[in-house]
């Protein structure tokens, strides 16, 4: 089973990298670009095929290590 975890900064947490990316895009002539927020994607391969159990396990992984829930939120996608 394959899983993808999206980790992004919580709303309200400053994202200077996102801001710099936005400025750079504006500088390249992409005038339509407003606020930019960046994050990361983690792809995992899991053994077994119980989707519900995998989702629970991934949630625990996010809470324990993959995301810092003080500043980040996460979304889990199973494929």
């Amino acid at each position, binding site marked *: 089973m394959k899983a993808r975890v999206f980790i992004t900064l919580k709303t309200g*947490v*400053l994202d*200077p*990298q996102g801001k*710099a990316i936005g400025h750079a895009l504006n500088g390249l002539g992409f005038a339509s670009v407003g606020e930019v927020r960046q994050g990361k994607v983690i792809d995992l391969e899991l053994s077994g095929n119980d989707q519900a159990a995998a989702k629970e396990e991934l949630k625990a992984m996010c809470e324990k*290590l*993959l995301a*810092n829930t*003080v*500043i980040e939120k996460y979304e889990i996608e199973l494929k």
Partner: protein
Amino acid sequence: MKSAVIFFPASNCDRDAKTALTQMTGKAPAMVWHQDSELPDVDLVVLPGGFSYGDYLRCGAMASQSVVMKSVRAHADKGGMVLGICNGFQVLTESHLLPGALMRNAALKFVCKPVGLEVDETQSAFTRHYSNGQRVTFPVAHGEGSYFADEETLDRLEGENRVAFRYAKGENPNGSARNIAGILSEKRNVLGLMPHPERVVDDVLGGTDGRALFQSLIENLS
């Protein structure tokens, strides 16, 4: 005072901490590798600066999961002193021994320079040799030192007088919330700070403002 310095792969201030502790306490600290499960019997544990585990995932995230951190947590739970400097502060927040998080500097640049600080709280085992509001200069050297916590946590830290050091006016090098440079745990036995007191204990190295921090600890623990 007996001390230990924990070192991780890619710690790089462990020897600075060792030199400062040896000079200040007259006794070399035990150097403890991150895979060691047991701590020697010490009063103070120092988590030094560096780039533990190459800053993979988030600064301090991998180190916070290392074997030795279980013992560091147990030491802190028993009331033992823990000092986290720079990457050590990041490890402490990632381990939830201190609240909040350290994020990318607001200007996105690595900052390496002496910075003016104010001692905001002297009622602690780490700071009692300073005077309230005393201006000191410690070097900083970090790319991810912007202290963040939600408003409620920040209010609580201030309300409980747990902000030990603040960047002086106009000196905030990284965009830290409320100019916070160093904070204490609820039981006040854990201090984390981004600036480096261990680099200013000898005139030869450009300053001695860090000495009072170690003197405070020595007096408290002897």
